[in-house]
């Protein structure tokens, strides 16, 4: 407020809002600190342990890719998706498989257009070379013409090249790198260390803004040392009960606190058994969803028996667990503080 003097004495004039346009302050980066990352990821539905948040912090500040390992279903891919949402960046996902090569991953030439170009060139060649009476003159003129055949307009970018071309950066997810061949792994090295690719016909293409790269692996085969050396390594273990309860509560909002505690305690018990495939986080979340659909309020042996196939994916595991279901359910109920 300010006081303005008028003939009738001082009156109080309402201050008008400031109309000067201030330069908008840069929003603080969601990756400025480990705590900010943990909070930010929680905001987009990903409950991260401190080590996961630290990995993301370092990936951003050291500009290095993160190699994420862990058993299936612990949230490796989800981490990349959540990061893209958090940073509001486009996510480019490349699924690896045996036989994946650079023509599917990096770039390909638009062959159809190239052929058409050749045809047009043939038709126009007479015009272009008109007046060149000797072979040498014709060749000189040919050299003078721009070499269009292998040029950017004929380049079909694949995921890796697209990720390098985004002005504002992107999140690049190279999923299940262990499924690809060793040759492809070697081919990735240049991109992962220098954020650039060499295309023999064009030259080196450098990233405008280096993308944030996640590579995931299920350990189908051992990755090469060269690749590992270029990456930060994050191993996501199966979570402890407390973290898992938070994950379930976030991913399945309708589930009651007591049921969450019970089902997590039950899953944690299963993980101590000698099973062929122990349930991971995604199975716990699926199971919680299934229990909600069945209107469950608490774990009961029959209910668990009927839905056990959501948690355990091998018949021999189900057979091994079933006889002791009563005991495990009672234990889970006890762990959740029930009677």
């Amino acid at each position, binding site marked *: 407020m300010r006081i303005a003097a008028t003939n009738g004495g001082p009156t109080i004039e309402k201050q008008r809002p400031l109309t000067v346009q201030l330069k908008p302050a840069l929003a603080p980066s969601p990756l400025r600190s480990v705590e900010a990352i943990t909070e930010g990821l929680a905001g987009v539905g990903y409950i991260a342990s*401190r080590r996961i948040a*630290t*990995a993301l912090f370092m990936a951003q*500040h050291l500009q290095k890719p993160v190699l994420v390992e862990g058993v299936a279903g612990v949230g490796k891919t989800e981490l990349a998706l959540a990061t893209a949402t958090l940073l509001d960046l486009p996510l480019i996902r490349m699924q690896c498989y*045996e036989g994946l090569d650079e023509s599917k991953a990096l770039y390909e030439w638009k062959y159809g257009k190239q052929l058409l170009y050749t045809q047009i060139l043939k038709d126009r060649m007479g015009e272009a070379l008109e007046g060149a009476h000797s072979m040498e003159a014709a060749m000189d003129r040919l050299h003078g013409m721009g070499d269009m055949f292998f040029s950017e307009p004929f380049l079909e970018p694949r995921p890796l090249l697209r990720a390098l071309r985004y002005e504002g950066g992107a999140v690049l997810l190279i999923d299940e790198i262990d499924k690809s*061949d*060793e040759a492809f792994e070697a081919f990735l090295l240049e991109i992962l260390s220098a954020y650039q690719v060499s295309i023999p016909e064009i030259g080196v293409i450098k990233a405008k803004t280096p993308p944030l790269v996640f590579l995931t692996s299920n350990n189908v085969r051992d990755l090469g040392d060269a690749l*590992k050396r270029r990456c*930060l*390594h994050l191993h996501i273990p199966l979570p402890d009960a407390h973290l898992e309860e938070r994950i379930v509560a976030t991913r399945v909002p309708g589930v009651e606190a007591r049921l969450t505690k019970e089902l997590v305690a039950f899953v944690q018990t299963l993980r101590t058994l000698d099973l062929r495939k122990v349930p991971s986080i995604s199975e716990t979340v699926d199971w919680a969803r299934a229990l909600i659909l069945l209107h469950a309020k608490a774990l009961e042996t029959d209910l668990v028996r009927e839905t056990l196939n959501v948690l355990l994916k091998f018949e021999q595991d189900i057979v091994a667990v079933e006889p002791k279901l009563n005991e495990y359910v009672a234990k889970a109920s006890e762990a959740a503080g029930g009677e």
Partner: protein
Amino acid sequence: MPSPVQATIEDFIKALRASEVRVSPAEAIDAHRTLMEVGYADRTLVKDALCIALAKTEEEVARFDDCFETYFTRDEFRGEPPEQRQTSGQAGSEDSADLPLAEMLLSGDQISLAQAMESAANRARATDVRLNTQRNLLSRRMLDNMGLRELEELIQRLREQGLPRDEALADRLAERREALFVEANKFVDRQMQLYASETGRRMRDKLLAEQKLTNIEPEEMRSMEALVKRMAKRLASRYSRKRHRADKGKLDVRKTIRKSMPYGGVPFDIVWKRETIDKPKIVAICDVSRSVQAAAQFMLLFLYSLNEVVEKLEAFAFSDRLVRVGDILEDEKGALRICKYVGLEEAQWAVTEQPPEGVGPVVPDGEQPKVIER
């Protein structure tokens, strides 16, 4: 000259390497860059950040966590400082004034003692310790570097003077010298754990790898399992990924057009889509004999490990009849089950890469089985 922090990190990296966490020079640089980013204030953050930068497998992560805790935890000189006796402390100061170790011991300055021990350890090159037998030598060198000899001479001199006051001082110094021995041993134990714990295992593995199968003791079987798994994985990865393009199947239009460019678009060089991978097919046959039980166990383990990585593995065991055992190898405890299944206690195995129908070469009784490559 490296800064103290840099030297600490370098020693830590040395300890990591001794614990079989492979850290290349480039990764060591990454570790320093990491610390510049995260600072030193938050212990958990430093641990997590270094772990992410340096440990590259799940096993390495576990080893890193152990190593970090051992390296950055100081248990030495944690106890209560000895009670101060004002009068005798005062009296002793004249004799011990020239000897910093005696001063520290008498004043009970735990922090200075810990620092002195750290720098004595550096001078004694504690990070170079590799064998258990070096334990006493290292401990002695460290204490000598701290001034133990001079301390002992002082105690001797005080006792020779024969005055009650000097006697009392000598007793107190001797008592605290004993306490110093205990702390020094603790320190050396930690150094051994950091820098020498894996050396023994590596030597055992090396010996085991060169040992005759018949001489392997039952308690060495677990180590052998790990070794065999590594061998099988190496063998399989060397032979499992020879790929070549098939000469029939579906036409790869893109590649064919690409190759036709030099011929003006005429598809002269035709490319097919299918790529085939040569994966070895293995047939293993087990012969029964009374003399080579250890060999059978070794080969069963080898086959089980190979089964995980080889596309097609046919395994047969026979005593009086031939039994297919490939399915049992799918199971983790397959090797043991096979022995029971075919009534084997002692068996001998021969492995060959894709022999003709039926029988592969069987190694004669009493000889070591071997992998025969085609």
